């Protein structure tokens, strides 16, 4: 369940951040819209990267638990 909570929290934060950004008006020096909106692509790639890294961190935690279990001979469980 923790898995969903962090994900949902992440989506809400992103939603909120996007809500605060100016929508259509082009302002000079607008970081996301300058040079053909290339930074939107950078943003998309970063989101993918962090999503995959989050998955790997979660997997690593599971493996750490399993290692503990092997080393401590089930003592860790309680």
């Amino acid at each position: 369940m923790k898995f969903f909570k962090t994900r949902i929290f992440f989506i809400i934060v992103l939603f909120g951040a996007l809500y605060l950004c100016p929508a259509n008006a082009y302002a000079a020096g607008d970081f996301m819209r300058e040079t053909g909106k290339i930074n939107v692509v950078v943003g998309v790639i970063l989101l993918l990267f962090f999503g995959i890294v989050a998955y790997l961190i979660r997997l690593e935690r599971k493996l750490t638990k399993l290692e503990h279990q092997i080393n401590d001979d089930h003592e860790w469980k309680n």
Partner: protein
Amino acid sequence: MWWKITSVLLLVYTFTLGMLVPLRPGILTVSPESGLTRQSTVLTISGYNAHFTQGEGQTRVWLTYDDENAILAHRVKALSDTQLEAEFQLPANLPKGEATMVLNCIVDNPADGTSVLPNAFQLKLDSTTMQEYDPTWKAHPVEKLNVKKGFTYPYRNVIYETIRNTYFHVPMWFVLLFLLLASATYSVIYLLNPKPEYDSKASAYAETGLLFGLLGLVTGMLWAHYAWGKAWSNDIKQITTAVALLIYMAYFILRSSFDEPEKGARLSAVYNIFAFATLIPLLYVVPRMFASLHPGATGSPAFGGQDLDNTMRAVFYPAIIGWTLLGFWMTSLRIRAKRIEDKLGGLD
């Protein structure tokens, strides 16, 4: 092993070509945006990735009404590579006697090929009316257009460089489909032959499938914010995808809510098969029946026509394979962890 290397190589190819290949030249703005008939007007055209100075003397600029009616600029001057001045003698009236009409702007030169800005210039009738058709409209038809050579991506207004997201946002949905298909397959296998191994495989595939679905949704929202103006505009595909992902989230809640593992595994397998059976209409059938902001969503299949040109296909298909193999790779790690977990008698 070979497929992991393939995945890395294809993703390297995707990132390199996806980011480095330039966009085709295009027109960003035309100013002023309106003028009166019978006027002589100088338009300043700003181009994107353009090389106006290279085409000096060969650049032609039109304002077009439709396929047959167009006016050619009688003087064109390149101020810089991306700034162009075009002087027009606007005709005495509009082709079909309208009071006002929005014209498209076409710029053509050998260096950049042809660029179009739709609805670039509004032509209004001045106070003096003239009944008969002005022949200037047909004097210089749009013809002998140049084609840009080289490997470039299409230039689209509003989207601009974000067309590259085709290689990062769109493949997520293909990965989701393949992973969830694998998940449903293992659920079927589990029902035929109830070994716990198949059940944990089904859940691992559903997990990464959901991960890629969420990534697709989130990256889509970011893109939508800058292309459609709003992160969430209740587009039919956004809604059906959200519903499909919620169905899969419920799968994990269902899995975790059983005390007897065997009964739980059986029921979740049945649920998973039904979840996949609803996923297909939700992602691929229902969106075609409604108007959508997504390209290629209505009527014809998404691969058809002008949404994807051949230069983009050369990166898009490898991207799909690369991302999908990455998804399977990540899942295989999860499956191996689960196998150890089961050997040790579970974590919880």
